[in-house]
């Protein structure tokens, strides 16, 4: 496969101003990837600081309730900062520091990636600035304050739809403005090469661990692994080491918002078309003139009009399937998991839980499935209460 391409997808569609920097980044990454000292340092951070390996938890009550496949949850919600985002961020910020950068910038949707970046920057002593859609700073006000506590400066983005897509636009603009001392910690398996590869590699620890854990617990591979998909970083991490295992179904759960037949969704695979945006060729929600469409989801972390290029290729090659899950279904699953297993998961992750509820009961009892629980739901509690019309004093 051509460098930086996944089938026809991927590439480096960015401003000339950034080209030398991403070439340099690719060279640096190839060097650190094989550097034992770097890998040891990262492993120590992941194990001693972030709390890896994460648990593979057997969801006994849920399994019993649904009456089919044995259900396991890969507990990325238990990582430090509360989501899988820390896996990628520790890798990138450590690399940035070694490259001589003194400042990191990042976009964030739900705020999880922003919090993780601010955390790693605080730990490793780098300046940090986060770009977040103004709409999202309201939906996720607590995470804004969390980032500020960690010493980051948060810029509310008021252009466009004021959500994740616009936060990415603004972070890219800032990177072209100041690239020599600044690394852009891209939060998902998207953007120009080498980002989709770097982020996937750092997130692939999820499936590396999960594959070993399930073999230890069950003595066999799962029938399916499920993960929610916005840009697709936790899904890529969850899928990666299972790609060669042809009998393991890979299922990505997209945000269908109010429904894929309404205008209010973020279901890129279900409703998008091939396009070129944010540095990559992939699938995007767009209109008949190639304008990027405004998208919607209850989940700020899935509220993105594109999907990473490796996912686009997994879809085209029929290795993975992508299914839409609505707001209502995700909120149901959010409540279900809380009541059944005593776990309040992120509303993003609840999209994957929801689809597991649909399929687990139809599977044999000797089968097992793994759901990636990408994050914890503390950040969502207030928004879910509002959604349900419950008045709470935050």
């Amino acid at each position, binding site marked *: 496969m051509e460098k930086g391409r996944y089938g026809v997808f991927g*590439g*480096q*569609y*960015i*401003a*000339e*101003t*950034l*080209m*030398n*920097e991403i070439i340099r980044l690719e060279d640096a990454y190839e060097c650190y990837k094989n550097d034992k000292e770097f890998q040891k340092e990262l492993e120590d951070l992941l194990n001693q600081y972030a709390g890896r390996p994460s648990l593979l938890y057997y969801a006994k009550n849920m399994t019993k309730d649904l009456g089919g496949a044995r259900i396991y949850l890969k507990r990325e919600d238990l990582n430090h900062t509360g989501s899988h985002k820390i896996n990628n961020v520790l890798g990138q910020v450590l690399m940035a520091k070694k490259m001589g950068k003194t400042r990191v910038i990042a976009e964030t949707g739900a705020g999880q990636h922003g919090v993780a970046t601010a955390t790693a920057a605080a730990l490793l002593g780098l300046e940090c600035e986060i770009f977040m859609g103004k709409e999202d700073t309201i939906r996720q006000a607590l995470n804004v304050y969390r980032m500020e506590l960690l010493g980051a400066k948060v810029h509310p983005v008021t*252009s*466009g739809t004021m959500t994740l*897509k*616009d936060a990415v*636009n603004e972070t*890219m*603009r800032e990177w*072209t*403005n*100041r*690239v020599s001392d600044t690394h852009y910690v891209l939060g998902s398996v998207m953007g120009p090469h080498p980002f989709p590869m770097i982020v996937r590699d750092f997130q692939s620890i999820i499936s590396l661990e999960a594959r070993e854990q399930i073999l230890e617990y069950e003595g066999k591979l799962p029938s399916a692994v499920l993960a929610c998909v916005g840009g697709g970083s936790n899904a890529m991490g969850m899928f990666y080491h299972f790609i060669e295992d042809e009998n393991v179904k890979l299922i990505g759960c997209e945000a269908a918002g109010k429904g894929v037949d309404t205008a209010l969704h973020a279901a890129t695979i279900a409703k998008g*078309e091939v*396009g*070129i*945006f*944010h*540095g990559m060729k992939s699938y*995007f929600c*767009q209109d008949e*003139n*190639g*304008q*990027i469409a405004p998208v919607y989801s209850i989940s700020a972390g899935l509220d993105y009009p594109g999907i990473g290029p490796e996912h686009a290729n997994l879809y085209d090659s029929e290795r993975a399937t992508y299914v839409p899950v609505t707001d209502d279904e995700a909120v149901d699953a959010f409540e279900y998991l809380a009541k059944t297993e005593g776990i309040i998961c992120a509303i993003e992750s609840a999209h994957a839980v929801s689809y597991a509820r649909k399929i687990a009961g139809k599977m044999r009892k000797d089968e097992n499935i793994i759901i990636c629980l990408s994050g914890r739901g503390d950040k969502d509690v207030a928004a879910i209460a509002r959604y349900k019309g419950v008045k709470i004093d935050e």
Partner: protein
Amino acid sequence: MSRISSAFEHKKAFIGFLTAGDPTPSLTIEYILEMERAGADLIEIGIPFSDPTAEGVVIQDANIRALSKGMTPDGVFDIVASVRQVSNIPLVFLTYINPVFHYGYEKFFARCEELGVDGIIIPDMPYEERSELLPIATTHGVEVISLIAPTSRQRIQMIAKESSGFLYVVSSMGVTGVRSEINTDLAAMIDLIKAVTDIPCAIGFGINTTIQAKQMAKLADGVIVGSAIVKIIEKYGNHAHQALFEYVSSMKQAIREQ
């Protein structure tokens, strides 16, 4: 000689940019002709895009205004058709890769050829990615304009050697928008370019005053002004004719005097 080359023949070129459909398609036509009358040598027409990541706030807002009034690539082609009925001024599109990809490269460039669009600038399509459309554009006689940035360093000569039309030399880091100072060592960049090609170089990003225009014209073969023009259109709306004429005349005069 191509229309683009003629813009630089025996003179320093003034290149004016506006966003198609801002404030209306018919005024875009009038403003293009007004700039030509004031001495502009080449016009860059922006095909609006929802997410113009290389643009500062002024041109971002113009994109939003144009799109909210329903401007489409076909609408921009209609504008070009009208301009071409009365003018032979070199016309170059500036847009992002997705609207062109979505339209279909073959169909898009065939339409450009048919209507007399001379070139295209795509800020999110660097040297490495242009092979997917370059042969198609070339077949239809549309020149793909390359950009060179302050960070391009060892890439400058690689890009310059294979450039066509003119070279768009980006004056500063960051996005488009007026700047009070331009600190890049543009003379050194242009020396590197001129060592490998005699293609004209035009400097853009940040230029808005006559003093800047004069300085830039000393260094290069042309000066590109975008945000300052879009700002005038934003300020005067439907009645920007005279202000545009005066501004472009003064800039052209400054370039002549260098």
